[in-house]
């Protein structure tokens, strides 16, 4: 049975590849490549789950594909199937098939018809990989594909301002989630001394044995996972992204933000349940987070006057309840709840335009001027306060800015004096000195040596912060991202003796992506002088191919699994010791901001309202 698992991942990938080569103008071919493969997927899924039920619902574990192996470290992918996978598979496969069928007509004649199907299939490939993942590495790959394809779907209307702005915003929140998993993976390397599979995670004795010795480590891993899950499932304090993700065509919002994407955080917690179920404090935390989210989100949902944001917050509240159920250990109930919520919200979003007809008719026939709501029994002052808070979404939307991005930006602006020349003049000599030190590593006093990794990682972090806030020079911004990776590599080289090939693996993808990105920008600059990062330029309208090329380069720079950097990143992390929290913080912050800075360049240069006026351009506010 195990050998069948791979098919459920290969099918959407195959659909994705076929849809890529279909001609733009042939809507039917594009659509068929999607629901042809997804129809087979659905049928096979039903048959397979049926067969699996007859077999008595065994836990299946696929073989391990080793991508990279070195002493003490193996990077492998593996698949896994249990009742959680089964539930997510059936819900996902059914919904995506129905929604593709829906979209075939709904998107007729829309510019970007093919792009829509491409992105959706890419999304579903990531979804399948994540739910079938047998270890963190595989899960993480799927997870990253979900993030990137979400970015693409939200910014589907890529020449308008708000979709692009929101896509970047949501990408930044996903990025926090990604790093949560990365940190969890890092710490669990140290906990298990191997890349743990979910099969072993189900081994109670093994888990409790390890956790007894390292309870702090266990708590850290659980917390990192919880952060990732909260970000992905729009729990507090991340909730405000979900309604803002509803920028694409309604069916894509329905399936991704109504159902599939938003339940992935729940999936992560379900998948790692055996790991944290014995940690009482974590369970309390999960439950509390769910409870506060459910309460706050219900309140916000009640004051929403736009149909999609109302559904979004109502869905967040239900997911909050799922976290409570999780904390209580009712896993099967959670699965039922996930399926029901996914179906309901998808349908509600799909019929949301009908609300006008339906509700106006209701109003016409059953209006009464003094409708009272539940809140009327509250004391006036409390009621008003709650209303204003809910109206302002408890300031959640600006929370990330105020607590995380603004301080980082402030720091980055301290480096405003840097231009490309100065950056090279200052940073290159220091880097050269660093390399010299590395060469002469044995002669450095130990007291200095312990601080070197942190120092270099900090310089790298500052470089990328500068890149993140750069307003004018596009290529400087790009160069600083590339440099950041070099600094990280240098920093970690001081940390531990390891083969140079690890560094090479890590940097190869970065150098390649950096060069491609540079070339694309250089070419664009020749066509259109005057690109900066202070505003959106929307050049994708005129140069879609260059935009695609640069996009690939940008995701390559973020460690997306299209270059060896994806493995290298994981590998490098494994060389950070468990007691080096500071180094881990610097490196993970660097990685968050790397991704953000790269996507920011892409968005500012290629997306948003087009700077040229030879065609219709939407108002910025629309």
């Amino acid at each position, binding site marked *: 049975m195990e050998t069948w698992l791979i098919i459920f991942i290969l099918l959407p990938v195959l659909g994705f590849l076929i849809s890529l080569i279909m001609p733009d103008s042939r809507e039917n071919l594009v659509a068929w490549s999607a629901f042809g493969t997804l129809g087979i997927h659905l049928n096979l899924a039903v048959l397979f789950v049926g067969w699996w039920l007859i077999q008595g619902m065994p836990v299946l574990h696929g073989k391990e594909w080793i991508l990279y192996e070195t002493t003490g470290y193996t990077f492998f992918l593996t698949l896994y199937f249990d009742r959680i996978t089964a539930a997510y598979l059936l819900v996902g496969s059914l919904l995506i098939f129905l929604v593709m069928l829906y979209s075939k007509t*709904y998107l007729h004649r829309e510019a970007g018809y093919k792009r829509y199907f491409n992105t959706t299939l890419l999304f579903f490939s990531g979804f399948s990989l994540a739910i079938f993942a047998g270890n963190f590495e595989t899960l993480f790959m799927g997870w990253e594909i979900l993030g990137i394809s979400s970015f693409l779907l939200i910014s589907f209307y890529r020449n308008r301002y708000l979709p692009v702005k929101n896509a970047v915003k949501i990408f930044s929140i996903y990025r926090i989630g990604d790093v949560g998993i990365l940190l969890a993976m890092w710490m669990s390397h140290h906990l298990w001394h191997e890349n743990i599979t979910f099969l072993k995670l189900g081994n109670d004795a093994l888990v409790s044995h390890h956790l007894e010795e390292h309870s702090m480590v266990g708590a850290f891993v659980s917390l990192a996972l919880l952060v990732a899950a909260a970000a992905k499932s729009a729990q507090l304090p991340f909730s405000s992204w979900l309604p803002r993700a509803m920028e694409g065509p309604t069916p894509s919002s329905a399936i991704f933000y109504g159902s599939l994407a938003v339940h992935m955080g729940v999936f992560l917690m379900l998948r790692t349940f055996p790991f944290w179920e014995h940690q009482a404090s974590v369970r309390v935390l999960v439950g509390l987070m769910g409870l506060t989210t459910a309460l706050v989100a219900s309140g916000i949902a009640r004051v929403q006057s736009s149909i999609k944001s109302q559904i979004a917050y109502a869905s967040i509240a239900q997911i909050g309840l799922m976290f409570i159920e999780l904390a209580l250990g009712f896993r099967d109930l959670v699965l039922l709840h996930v399926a029901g919520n996914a179906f309901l919200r998808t349908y509600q979003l799909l019929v949301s335009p009908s609300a006008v007809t339906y509700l106006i008719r209701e109003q016409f026939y059953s209006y009464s001027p003094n409708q009272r709501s539940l809140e009327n029994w509250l004391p006036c002052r409390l009621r008003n306060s709650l209303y204003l808070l809910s109206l302002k979404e408890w300031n959640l939307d600006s929370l990330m800015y105020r607590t995380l991005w603004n301080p980082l930006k402030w720091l980055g602006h301290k480096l405003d004096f840097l231009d490309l020349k100065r950056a090279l003049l200052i940073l290159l000599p220091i880097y050269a000195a660093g390399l010299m030190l590395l060469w002469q590593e044995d002669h450095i006093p130990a007291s200095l040596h312990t601080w070197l990794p942190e120092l270099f990682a900090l310089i790298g972090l500052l470089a990328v912060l500068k890149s993140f806030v750069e307003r004018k020079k596009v290529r400087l911004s790009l160069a600083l991202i590339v440099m950041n990776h070099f600094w990280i590599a240098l920093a970690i080289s001081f940390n531990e003796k390891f083969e140079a090939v690890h560094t090479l693996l890590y940097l190869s993808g970065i150098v390649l992506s950096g060069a491609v990105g540079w070339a694309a920008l250089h070419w664009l600059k020749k066509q259109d002088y005057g690109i900066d990062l202070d505003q959106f330029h929307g050049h994708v309208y005129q140069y879609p191919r260059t935009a695609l090329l640069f996009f690939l380069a940008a995701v390559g720079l973020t460690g997306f699994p299209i270059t060896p950097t994806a493995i290298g990143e994981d590998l490098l992390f494994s060389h950070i010791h468990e007691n080096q929290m500071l180094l881990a913080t610097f490196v993970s912050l660097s990685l968050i901001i790397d991704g953000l800075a790269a996507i920011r360049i892409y968005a500012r240069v290629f997306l948003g309202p087009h700077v040229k006026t030879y065609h219709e351009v939407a108002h910025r506010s*629309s």
Partner: protein
Amino acid sequence: MKTTVHATALFDEARVLHDLSHYLPAQAPLKDFVHHNTLHAFQDRSFFEALRESSEIFGYKSSLTIEEFRELYRRGLIQERILQQQLKDAYGEQHLKMWLQRMFQQPYDDPGQPRIGALRDQWKQCHHIDLDNLVHPTLFRLLCNYLDQGISIWPFPLANLSLLEALRHLERDSWVSLFQSKRAKALLLDEQIGLRDLLALVVGKEEWFDQYLFDQQFRHQGWSGMVAAVENQPMGLLDSRAASLRDLIHVELLLEIDALDRVLGPGWQPLAADTGEAPEALLAPVLPTERDEVIRRWQEALEWSFFDQILAGIQQNRLVMPAVREKSFQALFCIDDREGSFRRYLESYDPNCETFGTPGFFGVDTYFQPQDGQFYTKVCPNPVRPKHLIKEYQSAKKRQRDAHFSKHAHSFHSGWLITQTLGFWSALRLFINLFRPSMSPATSSSFQHMDPFARLTIENRDPADVENELQIGYTVDEMAERVYRVLGSIGLVKEFAPLVYVVGHGASSVNNPHYAAYDCGACSGRAGSVNARAFAYMANHLSVRELLRKRGIDIPASTHFLGALRDTTRDDITFFDIDSLSLANQQRHAVNEAVYTRASQCNAKERSRRFDSIESHLAPEVIHKLVQRRSVSLFEPRPELNHATNALCIVGQRSLSRGMFMDRRAFLNSYDWRLDADGAHLLNILNAAVPVCGGINLEYYFSRVDNQKLGAGSKLPHNVMGLVGVANGMDGDLRPGLPKQMIEVHDPLRLLLIVEQRPDLVMDVIRRNEATYGWIRGGWVLLVAVEPETRAMYRFEEGKWLPYEPLTGPLEQVNNLETLIESHQDNFPVYLINQPN
């Protein structure tokens, strides 16, 4: 140099509010959709001046680009001889070569940045502050919650107050403030503070206040326009609000102060402190350029490439109407462009019938109240102020409900249960709708407007029957007057057939927030069923007929008027009160009904050629089923194409157009020039047809040429805001205008009004009403008079008639419409139809 919007220097609050309200988009809340000239604010100027000014001032793309025109030329949609003739007429033979070079080769710069926004943009330029990002989300949410008609579960507290008053109450009694800055809160609570004081803080220089407000409000013209529309027409909302532009500006200025306090700290200076020179005055004259001239010539060439064929067709199509022994039936339809092809099919399947066009409210200017309705619905043209009310009673209809729109799914505890139960039902529902679409409570159906089996209070029994100052039903005199006017204006005064159908129209769609735009424009975006039924009742009334006879219209006792409703989306027709027919007429009706059915099927087939998802070579009855299915499919964003491609309005006898294939592009208003020596009927017709058809036409024109700024963009990502409008996403501005799916096949042509009457009388009539004349004088609607007897043509040009000779030679004849329809999707040229007999 002027520094403010107007020449007068200082700030006059009332005036600037009035000006803003004038220039903002004037689209009503969704429940009523009234087509209007999108650039209504510029209507006192000529059409081409308006294009130029709106483009320069507000940045609208007010016409196709020169490149787009050149492409249309390459595709043959702009004809060479028309273009050349027009250039010769305009500039003389000697300059033709130079102008041809300009039209075809000369490169022109893209339009630059518009004037609007330049002043307020200084916040970004000088301080790196993106005020829009900081202010808009909160402002839009406030406005949406305040205006909301029934989406939110916890409605806006104190919605009975004005926005500002309500906010003051909220702030006074709350631990939480809308603002972060204490100063903003204090300013809100201080009732002495007015716009002038706030502007002094934010802008500083009084000369700039006007322009700043224009900049500020036009950053979100959707919401501002909605507030202005609600302020001007409070009836637009069922749950009314005391909204005002003034309050909106007040709150926005406070939010701006709050944002500036937050970002810049307490000591910031007003905008004027760091800005040296004033930007260009917003409404200063816009100088014409050569580019504008070239655009004008292209636009006219595009229009006349089509109009010339139609005019040639009118001259060539002089077929003698077959002498009818006995008329089988007569039918009155709306002037709507969607009815033309249906009438053509009726006439071809039953050559003995006769059809007429008149605005689809059939002179019944009334409010309607369905049984159990809490409100009145206006069912006549928007500018009319009805004094009557028709009520529905004895209806046995039940409204269906749908739990998916229930608000319980959004609450915490019942939501928990609902997701686990209804959730699975949703999957099934979706599955069923994808494979077998059918009517549901979510559908907006034209047949819901009125229960055909319920009764209506059409006749007033007692003058004391008055409800809210509206008289219930019409007196006999009033009925007779309405019937007389309609019959007289269309020329149906003798030779009545035994059955006269009065056919209103409506539309059906699902998942369509713009559903009201699909219904009858002459009924304020409702179905015309009540009006049709009421008109038939009036015309059948014995005392009414008695009065009509005295005025020269003798309707024989054997003639019966029958109301009906035709659904333009589904190509369905329903007849009302059939049991009131005599036995003989029932038999006749049975025969006619078969004709109607066949015409419906063929009409569905003709429409289907524009739909990619239907193979138009299938049999008419099969296509009819598919077309009906579209109207109830959740996933179908184009249930029908509505008024797309409209370009003509023909006022005259049916013989003018009957032999032509006009591809559903014409509004047809019947008019018999022989019965109107003093032009009284023509005046009535033009007073209604010019603003209604012109409004539809221009709304399509502007939504087509700039679908992003003047239209609503693609409808696929639309999010319903408070049931009043649509926006993209959660934080977007409202998007007035028509969505892309409605206009994508539309060619941006102005409306050509063709009137069959002596030119001197036409000139006299159009000048009787200044409002109507404004449309024509400014070139917002083009006008050609056709001399009835000779069919000589005269084109209205700057207040004069110019003789017009069509350049088009003999039009192609078409024998078989079916093969023509199956041939392709694009617009057809004008054909002459070979009549079978």
